[in-house]
């Protein structure tokens, strides 16, 4: 788990994290699941398509009956970079940080997120696991961290 920073209230104009409650988004279960440590997405009950990110309408068959499915918690790094300069407002103190694309185990689904861990030792193909990032205001997000192969 990634610890919350000290609370700060930024304008919505500069707040990168999605608003997560039922009053803000129809995919609020995603965030509830993430609170529980589960990485999930939607599956179309009509055509079976599983998509990233979660949807309310299926782009393939136009149905709008979705069910929530768990995604693998582990995967391997497909690409990554260490950001050394040019952080967006609110992320200046994070520099340097690593962002990467992870292929989830047993799927061809990829997810982009921060990757925790020693940048020097990262490489393409390295195994990683989801970890939950908790914000001071109660919201959650996710990152990956390296694990033993």
């Amino acid at each position, binding site marked *: 788990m990634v610890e919350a920073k000290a609370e700060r209230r930024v304008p*919505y*104009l500069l707040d*990168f994290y999605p608003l997560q409650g039922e*009053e803000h*988004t129809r995919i609020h279960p995603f965030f509830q699941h993430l609170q529980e440590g589960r990485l999930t997405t939607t599956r179309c009950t009509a055509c079976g398509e599983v998509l990233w990110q979660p*949807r*309310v*309408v299926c782009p*393939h068959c136009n149905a709008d009956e979705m069910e929530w499915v768990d995604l693998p918690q582990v995967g391997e790094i497909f690409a990554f970079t260490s950001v050394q300069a040019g952080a967006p407002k609110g992320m200046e103190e994070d520099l340097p940080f690593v962002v990467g694309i992870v292929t989830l185990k047993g799927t061809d689904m990829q997810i982009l997120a921060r990757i925790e861990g020693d940048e020097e030792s990262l490489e393409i193909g390295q195994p990683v696991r989801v970890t939950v990032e908790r914000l001071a205001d109660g919201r959650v997000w996710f990152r990956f961290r390296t694990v033993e192969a």
Partner: protein
Amino acid sequence: MVGTGLTHWGVRKATLKELAQEAGKALFDDVDNLPKAEVDSLFVGTALAERLAFQSYVAPMVAEQLGIHPTRMLARTELACVSGQLAMKMAYMAIATGLSDIAAVVGVEKMNLPDMAETQASLAAILDREWEGVAGMTAPPYFAMVAQRHMYEYGTTREQLGLVSVKNHRFSATNPYAHFPKEVSLDQVLNSPMVSTPLRLLDSSGITDGAAAVMLAGEDRAREFTDTPVYIEGAGQAATGNLTVNLPSLTEWPHMRRAVRDALSMAGVTIQDMDLAEVHDCFSISEIIEYEELGLAEKGKGGQFIEEGQSEIGGQLPMNTRGGLLGCGHPLGATGVAQVVEVVQQFTGQVPQERYVGGTWALTHNLSGNANNHSVLVLHRDS
């Protein structure tokens, strides 16, 4: 146009993306024999996504939400309250030039934020932020001064303004997609909270989340998808300003007259040929001045026009039968597209009997900012 789609409008518990998905579903459900792969282009009208949704580059995002992969054109248009009509016009041009065969148009806006003062700050950036927004100017104070001058110069009454809202709410009461689907009395309008003197809450269009969508195809393919295609036959636009103090007048909008004239002339018709019109009633005073600039009422007599019921069904020209911006709300980028949706649904008999007009010719009008820009489409269904 070969199909339409609307989301429910209001203070929606949904994100910009989710509104786009809903509009896409409604659209593809309506044109159910059109495979998504045949949609070669997408035009997205949205005004303030960069600020209100903290999201730029909305066009490819909407494409992904709809599940289409444009292979000919992909564009986002921004022109404040005219953003949606501009997307319509760009799609029209793309098809007319052969740069697209089948194009989707989506107008979408997410305006309600947990901190509405941030929404208002963003709306203040539609006017010149440095020289007008800084004074606290947004649309309501601008149109309030327009109303003050129209009352001062022509004797327009507070009651006449209110009647516009009464009419448009009567129409929106029959529109399940509207933000405000219920009737209001003149008393209710005149006693609603003051927003910016002399304009009250019920003189003002709401701050609304919503989306609207239309599918366009060229004449050669339109009948594959519908028996009753509706065509864009005329387009006109004119602008001046930009600062409020550099406008020719607060109460006369000569550039609206020009846009109307050009659009009608391109279509080879006159205002008398129109069966209905969707005009930009962002505030009650706007519709009053629009009666005048459409050439239907003498200058200064717009108030009398509504009193006489000339913009009602059965009057000289029924206007805003979907409920207008006053009744439906005004998600900036969606409004111009939703007006076209109403016209198509009127022409094809898809509206409730209470507001049915039908017909084969219609005009849609949007203004933007401090009314420094006016844009008009003339639509036609082969009879």
